[in-house]
């Protein structure tokens, strides 16, 4: 049976595990109909021209994990940012792990989507925001139909979260192939501030396919920093759909660090619904082996005097494939928009591929919009210079790559996280650089 049919027919079974009396029931029922209509995207769709899911979809995924697996903290300690005090929401095979997590309801809510969807005290927020920001396509509809668990973060007005929030998804490989569909809702009300770090990690060689949807609402003057670390094993695929709605003078940034995974697709959508908004989309992608990472961004400027900045850097080795598909839409009334988009790539191997499609759709005349895209190599003369200074070739190359990605790395505001990312990159490049970058 094909995965699509399996998912559609399993929906009834899924319904028995959730509360069908809640308002979410209608949303789910509609969503499964939408999914039946749209199905999975194919390469024929313009937005999926360079990424095929066929290889992933042919696996026989189990939809409901049969057993619960407990993990000891010491086994997974390395996947957390240890020297940083954070709130933690941890999921094992899609199920909440209370002993690894540390949540709060004090001043603001950092808890579970399952509670938010079922408990009355969250109803006011869920009714207003849940499933209103996400755009419905096949994958989002599928997630919505099966949405049950994920992170729920709510900051009321005038609150700055006292420490960052880590969202970590582990898959244990208890099943041969597992489909996970986390659903997150993050609401940051006016004048509030929060930082979130998200990570997906497989702990075994078994296949994992994650179809995640995150909805983010940023109220007036809200501040949001979202870091995504994608350094999974080569059997794990991830589709990350993130939708952000921003209001007057809010600043939202999403930083994506992609270092692994079989197929990773980031659908990043920003909708600006106010003035003086700044949206920042950054990414560093360093790939080797047969990994495939696709960044698909959309920024919609619908009101005057807003800005957006996109900066994506990619380094591709072996048979890896990098895709950048960025789009900026400036509506007719969105005068004085400043929108910038930049995509720089380095190819290290003849088998590696880069496909880039930076697009602008502009309907207003008094705007400054630009995009730039380059594909090239490391500067041989710079490398030679480093060699003459006694720095070995491998380290020299690594240094140049650090320099290449530096703009984006610099935008990481938490020092501990920055060190962690630097370490990850050093591991990736197989060097140990004995000084702090």
């Amino acid at each position, binding site marked *: 049976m094909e995965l699509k049919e399996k998912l559609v027919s399993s929906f009834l079974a899924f319904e028995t595990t959730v509360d069908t009396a809640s308002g979410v029931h209608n949303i789910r029922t509609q969503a499964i109909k939408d999914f039946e209509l749209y199905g999975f995207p194919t390469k024929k769709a*313009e937005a999926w021209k360079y990424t095929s899911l066929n290889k992933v979809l042919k696996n026989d995924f189990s939809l409901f994990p049969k057993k619960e697996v407990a993990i000891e903290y010491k086994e997974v300690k390395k996947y957390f940012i240890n020297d940083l005090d954070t709130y933690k929401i941890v999921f094992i095979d899609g199920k909440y792990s209370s002993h690894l997590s540390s949540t709060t309801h004090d001043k603001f809510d950092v808890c579970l989507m399952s509670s938010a969807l079922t408990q009355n005290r969250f109803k006011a927020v869920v009714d207003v925001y849940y499933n209103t920001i996400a755009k419905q396509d096949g994958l989002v509809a599928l997630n919505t139909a099966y949405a049950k668990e994920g992170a729920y973060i709510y900051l009321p007005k005038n609150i700055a979260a006292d420490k960052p929030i880590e969202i970590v998804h582990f898959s244990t490989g208890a099943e041969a192939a597992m489909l996970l569909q986390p659903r997150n809702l993050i609401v940051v009300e006016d004048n509030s501030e929060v930082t979130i770090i998200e990570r997906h990690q497989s702990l075994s060689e078994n296949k994992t396919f994650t179809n995640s949807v995150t909805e983010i609402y940023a109220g007036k003057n809200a501040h949001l920093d979202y870091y995504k670390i994608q350094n999974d094993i080569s059997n794990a695929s991830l589709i990350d759909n993130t939708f952000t709605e921003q209001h007057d003078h809010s600043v939202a940034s999403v930083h994506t660090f992609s270092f692994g995974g079989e197929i990773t697709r980031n659908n990043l959508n920003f909708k600006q619904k106010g003035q003086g908004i700044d949206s920042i989309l950054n990414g560093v992608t360093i790939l080797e082996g047969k990994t495939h990472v696709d960044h698909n961004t959309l920024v919609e400027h619908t009101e005057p005097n807003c800005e957006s900045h996109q900066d994506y850097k990619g380094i591709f080795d072996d048979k890896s494939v990098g895709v950048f598909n960025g789009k900026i839409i400036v509506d007719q009334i969105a005068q004085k928009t400043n929108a910038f988009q930049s995509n720089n790539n380095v*190819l290290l191997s003849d088998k590696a591929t880069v496909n*880039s499609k*930076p*697009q*602008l759709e502009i309907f207003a005349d008094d*705007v400054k919009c630009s*995009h730039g*895209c380059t594909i090239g190599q490391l500067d041989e003369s710079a490398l030679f210079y480093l060699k003459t200074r006694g720095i070995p070739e491998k380290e020299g190359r690594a240094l140049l790559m650090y320099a290449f990605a530096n703009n984006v790395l610099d935008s990481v505001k938490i020092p501990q996280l920055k060190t962690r990312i630097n370490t990850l990159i050093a591991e990736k490049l197989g060097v140990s650089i004995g000084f702090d970058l």
Partner: protein
Amino acid sequence: MSKYTEDDLKKELETKEYEYGFYTDIESDTFPIGLNEDVIRAISAKKDEPEWLTAWRLDAFKVWSEMEEPEWANVKYEKPDFQAISYYSAPKKSDPNKTLDDVDPELLATFEKLGISLDEQKKLSGVAVDVVVDSVSVATTFKKTLAEKGIIFCSISEAVKDYPDLVKKYMGTVVPKTDNFYAALNSAVFTDGSFCYIPKGVRCPMELSTYFRINQGGTGQFERTLVIADKSSYVSYLEGCTAPSRDENQLHAAVVELIAMDDAEIKYSTVQNWFPGSAEGKGGVFNFVTKRGICEKNAKISWTQVETGSAVTWKYPSCILKGDNSVGEFYSIAVTNNYQQADTGTKMIHLGKNTKSTIISKGISAGKSQNSYRGLVQISPRAEHARNFSQCDSLLMGNECGAHTFPYIEAKNKSAQIEHEATTSKIGEDQIFYCNQRGIDTEKAIALIVNGFSKEVLNKLPMEFAVEAQKLLEISLEGSVG
């Protein structure tokens, strides 16, 4: 340059027609509307074509009837009814001018402003002109001068008769007859076009030029151009297009194939000012063109285009850089005003080693128009040290128009170096103020600024065309500032 009027053209046509007697036996003819195999056979018979070509056309028609009209372009229009078009129309011998009388005075004024004169061009600038009026080539000038050098420059129908080997060998090799919807349609029904062959080592001493016009209402223009530059030769080819004012939309689906053999160079320049439709967006020409060139070793193809006309433009002149060290260039200005829509750009396919390509695209949108750049740069795994530079700039005038950029960049070789940049801006108020201050009125100031914006491309045009193109820019933007 003296003013050129329709009368001049009339006179010219009358005399030329008899001089060459190109179709003295043809009665008149606009075919009844509609398209089927019989119509294609009739076109083929009318043109006295060899059997292989009739079969070739029928093949293309067969494929075309199974194809669907493409919808991916960023343009909206009412699809033409292909059964409501007459696929062949030749000026009547007895009364060739009947349809010229109802020419819009606005268009005459445009002609006057441009100072276009086929005769003038010929005399003053040594341009050989192959005039295509309603699909049939009626006059070819300077044939003799060219023949001395061994250059063949004639209509494609003549070429089919006189040089069937060349035509058979090369036609459809760059743009296969089944390439896309409009190319297939063209392959099935093309009525005329130009053919050009430059022999080995010959540098064509003059700019070759074709002038297209659409006169008859309700006829489609399906011309086909084939330019072959043999080893180490050089040719510069100009193509200009105009269409009188017509209410209903007219369809123009052309195919241009360029073949540049080892060390050859082809420079292909287009100035297109087909009728863009009225200020209310009524009428206008649909311009769906497939242009492609192939470069062998060390060859170079350079496309330069100034697109100011047509209600809808859908055009991507491309280069296949097959040979090592070959070079492809694309310089484009696309101006849209009122309700015009343009979706244009290029494709650079790098196959050979050390291939280079340059793309400079300038889009100017005014009024309620939509202007899109769509381009592809593809580096194949074999293309070592390929180099591309692309720049697309858009200028927006007024807040009801749109400018869009859809670049596709695909690199599969690590030694590739690709740069792409795009900007969007408007004419600064300070710039206009500065001009005003120096006694230049706003309209003139805008023309000045637009000219400056387009300079990089205008510079690439042959001199005679550059002057015309500059004026065209001015005319197309007239009234776009209030």
